[in-house]
């Protein structure tokens, strides 16, 4: 990273708040948006937080947030600005694509113009659950990439990160510039302060058309998962244990 000014990009996605029962739209391949509330994707909030902490540690620099989608995404960009990001860019598109490569190409086309030190992504967008856009942008820009990091240290143009594997951890070293995707556990995002919310209103938010191609992945169908049978309470206290064991052996056949 340059002597003092660090340049950081964060890509954030507007996603529905998940504590609802979703309904499938009339076309059978979309989620009915009626009544849904939206927020910044959880993992992207941690990405914003990581960017802000890096800038604060370095002393000076810029945190720019990018979001691809309809005008409504400006609400999420403003939230990131109110947390402390410096400027925002909306890549305007009627909707995001089902192909993560199309999204990655559109983001890469915009990010390419600037020499970033770090480009942060969330590990996964919890609506489409592709877990792909970050590493794809890295490939398209020819940058090194560490995905799903849960600890991070950056100093003197190099960094170390931790990744959780199944039953193990990786300690990874990388040079800057780099693409990082953020897992839970890296940090807890700050809440926007009242002052931050006021300041965000005056921060620059640029709108540009997204260069979104059709891609090779589309949604063929969406459905609700099969409902589980209604729960059943089989008894109270330790006295119910023999019955539980019997059911696990004879009915569920897992013991």
């Amino acid at each position: 990273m340059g002597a003092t000014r660090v340049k950081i990009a964060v890509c954030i996605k507007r996603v529905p708040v998940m504590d609802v029962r979703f309904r499938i739209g009339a076309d059978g391949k979309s989620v009915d948006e009626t009544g849904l509330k939206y927020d910044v994707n959880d993992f992207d909030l941690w990405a914003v937080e990581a960017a802000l902490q890096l800038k604060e540690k370095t002393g000076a620099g810029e945190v720019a947030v990018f979001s691809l989608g309809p005008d409504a995404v400006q609400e999420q960009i403003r939230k990131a600005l109110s947390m402390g990001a410096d400027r925002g860019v909306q890549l305007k598109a009627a909707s995001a694509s089902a192909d993560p490569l199309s999204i990655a190409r559109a983001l890469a086309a915009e990010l390419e113009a600037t020499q970033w030190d770090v480009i942060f992504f969330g590990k996964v967008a919890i609506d489409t659950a592709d877990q792909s856009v970050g590493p794809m942008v890295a490939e398209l820009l020819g940058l090194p990439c560490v995905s799903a990091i849960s600890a991070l240290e950056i100093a003197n143009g190099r960094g170390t990160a931790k990744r959780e594997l199944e039953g193990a951890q990786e300690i990874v070293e990388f040079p800057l510039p780099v693409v990082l995707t953020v897992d839970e556990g890296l940090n807890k995002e700050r809440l926007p302060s009242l002052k931050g919310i006021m300041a965000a209103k005056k921060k620059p938010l640029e709108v540009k058309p997204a260069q979104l191609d059709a891609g090779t992945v589309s949604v063929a169908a969406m459905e609700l998962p099969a409902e589980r049978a209604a729960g059943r309470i089989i008894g109270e206290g330790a006295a119910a244990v023999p019955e539980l064991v019997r059911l696990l052996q004879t009915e569920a056949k897992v013991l």
Partner: protein
Amino acid sequence: MATVFAFAEARGGELRKVALEAVTAARTLADETGGGEVHALLVGAPGIGGKAAALGAHGADVVHVCEHAGFEHANAEAGAALAAELLKRIGARAAVFPASASGRDLAPRVAAKLGVGVASDVVSVAAVGGAIHARHPSYTGKVITTLALTGTPAVIAIRPNVFTPRESARAGRVETVAPAVDPAASKVKVRETKAGSRAKLDLSEAPVIVSGGRGLKSAENFKLVEDLAAAFGNAAVGATRAVTDDGWRPHSDQIGQTGRVVSPELYVAVGISGAIQHLAGMRTSRTIVAINKDREAPIFKIADYGIVGDVFDIVPALTEAVRAARAHR
């Protein structure tokens, strides 16, 4: 007849179960599309080639083996370059990766190199007309999306523990392949792979998961959960976010919306309320048992077998009973 590729993930010189799952899924897809060949790719430090036979036994016609000291740890830069080059050379119709921590890192890079999209965390796959259809849970498991992949190859990453490894003896002819780029020159370097302190069986692979929540009251009391897991013999230990936030368990044990997503044969929820974000990670478990002192706890709505009461009475009794049941088998 379509050639289907499978990435055979290895760690520490051993094949992972997800490698056999990937080969099994590739075999099924190849058979459904007219019986083409399955080509597996196995990379690792020198000696890894010795593990190729198991891939043949699960349906690989050819096992491409790349041995290099630079592949001792995961090396996504060089791994993706090699996989992409091989995929082009063999003209694969589809490429199956495990949606493991390493596979999820690799698959999108390979897809981007080849200019195609990717479907991640796939739970079923089928050829439909000219396209490959891949189903995967989305919206924290509350919506199942079927994606149509029209690119070649169709790159998919399959959810661990869903495609049960199945034997299907094939030649498993070993072909040595050189790295596409020097693995020692990767910009990102894994300095160390630390094996987990206690997890012998991983959450994504364990047939049984015993999970603890705040109802256990303290980190020490997780011993109850560990003892029950040990009694089952084939169980891993999971936790809620309340527990990982308090530092009773590492974040890697967390199950839920922002943690791990699991579908074991049996999930035992101990002192867990059943918040929607927790359910997002375990609701597809085959059988769910819940132990909670609050009859109104939401976990009971999805538990096949619920017991109302104090975990400190019930769990030790259950541990004894499970031990006895297994001893008599």
